């Protein structure tokens, strides 16, 4: 079975890390890590704090210098490509981008067009169309004239996604796009990413702390611990009690989502497992004995 999402001339892996070592200063967070990310999918990187998932994302997006190894974007070494050319193929939304004081939504989204502009080139009708589409896709069209610093957290995150969409790249990397958002806004952002993947065919890679959300929305998950990949595959294969125990050191029970059947975890903490617990323990399926 071939992947209908990767057109013939593209390799199956949109992004590939080959024996990548990277870190901060002299300490390597990931060392000799290899992983491939398939085109046309939503891939979620999960794992405990400091497991190297953000480091992997940043190395792949050339935000961190590689100590060793190489990153291939659509089959070509990312360091051999001019950085603006990479910026036309690969968008990255970091965890905390900065909005200049009193900038309006329209002006901020326009800055996402930077890699597509030649020197001295003015705004074209094509630029405006892409910006309009980015605003419509993120539901931020009515905010165009508003200053970004007056928006709510959820609105602001959608505006930043619009900036990344204005960059108009087939691949989009997001570092914890739902952190700091309340649950309704989290779902809103994840729905938006699912639609972008579904309707525009974008390859999406995101770092997530929420295993259940990752399992609901991602078609691939990569579980990491201590700078290495423990398991990669569809949520059903990655989000198992064994993997969660190995990756997080957490006892949990996995049940299918009542609507989608995707695996969802319920953590079993010390209190839940304690004999004094008032939880109806006999009703828990798959309880560790």
């Amino acid at each position, binding site marked *: *079975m071939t*992947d*209908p*999402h990767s057109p013939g001339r593209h390799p*199956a892996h949109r992004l590939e890390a080959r024996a990548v070592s990277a870190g901060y200063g002299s300490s390597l967070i990931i060392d000799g890590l290899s992983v491939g990310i398939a085109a*046309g*999918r939503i891939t979620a990187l999960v794992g405990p704090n400091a497991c190297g998932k953000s480091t992997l994302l940043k190395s792949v997006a*050339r935000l961190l210098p590689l100590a060793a190894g190489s990153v291939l974007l659509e089959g070509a070494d990312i360091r051999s490509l*001019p*950085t*603006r050319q990479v*910026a*036309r193929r690969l968008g*990255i939304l*970091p965890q905390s*981008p*900065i*909005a*200049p*004081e*009193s*900038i309006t939504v*329209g*002006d901020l989204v326009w800055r996402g067009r*930077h890699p597509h*502009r030649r020197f001295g080139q003015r705004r074209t009708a094509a630029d*405006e169309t892409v*910006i*309009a589409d980015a*605003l*419509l896709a993120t539901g931020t069209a009515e905010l*165009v*004239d508003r200053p970004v*610093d007056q928006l709510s957290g959820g609105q602001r995150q959608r505006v930043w996604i619009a*900036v990344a969409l204005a*960059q108009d790249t087939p691949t989009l990397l997001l570092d914890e796009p739902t952190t700091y958002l309340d649950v309704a806004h989290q779902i809103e952002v994840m729905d938006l990413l699912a*639609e972008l993947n579904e*309707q*525009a*065919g974008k390859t999406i890679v995101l770092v997530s702390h929420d295993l259940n959300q990752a399992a609901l929305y991602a*078609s*691939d998950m990569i579980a990491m611990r201590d700078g290495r990949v423990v*398991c*990669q*595959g*569809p*949520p*059903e*294969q*990655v989000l*198992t*009690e064994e993997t969660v125990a190995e990756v997080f050191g957490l006892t949990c*029970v*996995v049940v299918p989502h009542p609507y*989608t*059947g*995707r695996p969802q975890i319920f953590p079993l903490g010390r209190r839940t497992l304690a004999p004094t617990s008032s939880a109806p323990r006999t009703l828990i*399926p*798959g*309880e560790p004995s």
Partner: protein
Amino acid sequence: MTDKTIKTDEADQADKADGAGQAAETGGADARPAPPPYSVCPAPGDAAAPTTPGGPATDPTRAEPDATGPARAELLGRLRRTYRARSRRVTLTAVVLGLLLAGLLVASVLLGGLRRIEPGDVLPAALGLRDGVADYTIHRIRVPRALAALLAGALFGLSGALYQRVVRNPLATPDIVGISAGASAGATTVLVLLPALPLGTPLAAVAGAFLLVGAIHALSWRGGVDTYRLVLVGIGLSAVCSAYTNYLFTLAEEHTLAAMMRWTIGSVNGADWAGVTTLAWGLAVCGAGTALLSRRLDCLALGDEFATGLGTPVGLTRTTALLLGAAGAALATSVVGPVGFVSLISGPIAVRLAGPSRAVALAVPVGAVIVLGADVLAQHAPLVSPVPTGVLTALLGAPYFVWLLLRRRQEATP
């Protein structure tokens, strides 16, 4: 939208149930899957089915053509109006500032009276076409003074806005992080300790400023410019330079004290054509450099990581911009002394006038208006005049500086 997502996911599940008999169906202990191989598990081909059964769609608006068609056209119109309004506001601001500058130039030359000069001689004298009193008053004294104020203000405004933009901190301007203090220290050193040196104080000021910039960067370097440390180190070194300059005052001969005053407060009094030429070259070079960098600076304002993602060489852009800013501040200080707070307030004023997108460019005329206006007041305002120009800009800028310290918001940059 939600419905669709769920349905597709259900389709996924149906596909997968056919294939591998996944255990997620029940989640019961009996039906649990074999432990996954702890490595890269499946080939991508036989993993979860694609989310869109019909293959990749490319047009984001395809899903709801009826709903988005008119909405998109309307939004496009609105976008164009928004961007046009922004451009108009920038142009209007620039024109108003230009007119203000022209008016201030005329006032600066004409105020103070035209004793023994025919009104018809003023313009020719300004161009150096007359002799005698007219030439002396207009061409030697007033015009260079006005032009020096204008150009130095422009350079202060530009260098301050550059620093604020690149360091992303409204406090990080050349005068606050000590570049002006370095220039003063360099100039007073030559005045007091090496008066025989044919070096000239302006050159010493530039040298002092660059020494200080080098020291700041060396001390705040952590595999790249650490902008937070840059501000703190700069404020510290600025204090050291001021203490050193004050110490030199105690060593100075009486007749050099007057010359030294300029290097502690800053004044355009006594500016000559050589100074004007220096400033004009400085503004041309720094202005052109900034224009070449302007789009990268816009990207840099979004944070280092986002800027890298947009294809901006962050380190190179930041270093170049800091060097341009330091050069501008050093050259301006070398001619008119450390006229305080102009580089601090010009950028934020430009943001208030026309938004952040052209703030660095508009900080140039804003700085020029501030220094030229302050100089006209310093010469002619009742009660206060005559005072050094720097006294008035400090009176204007220091309260703002305190307010900024009290407010100190994270993202307050031009």
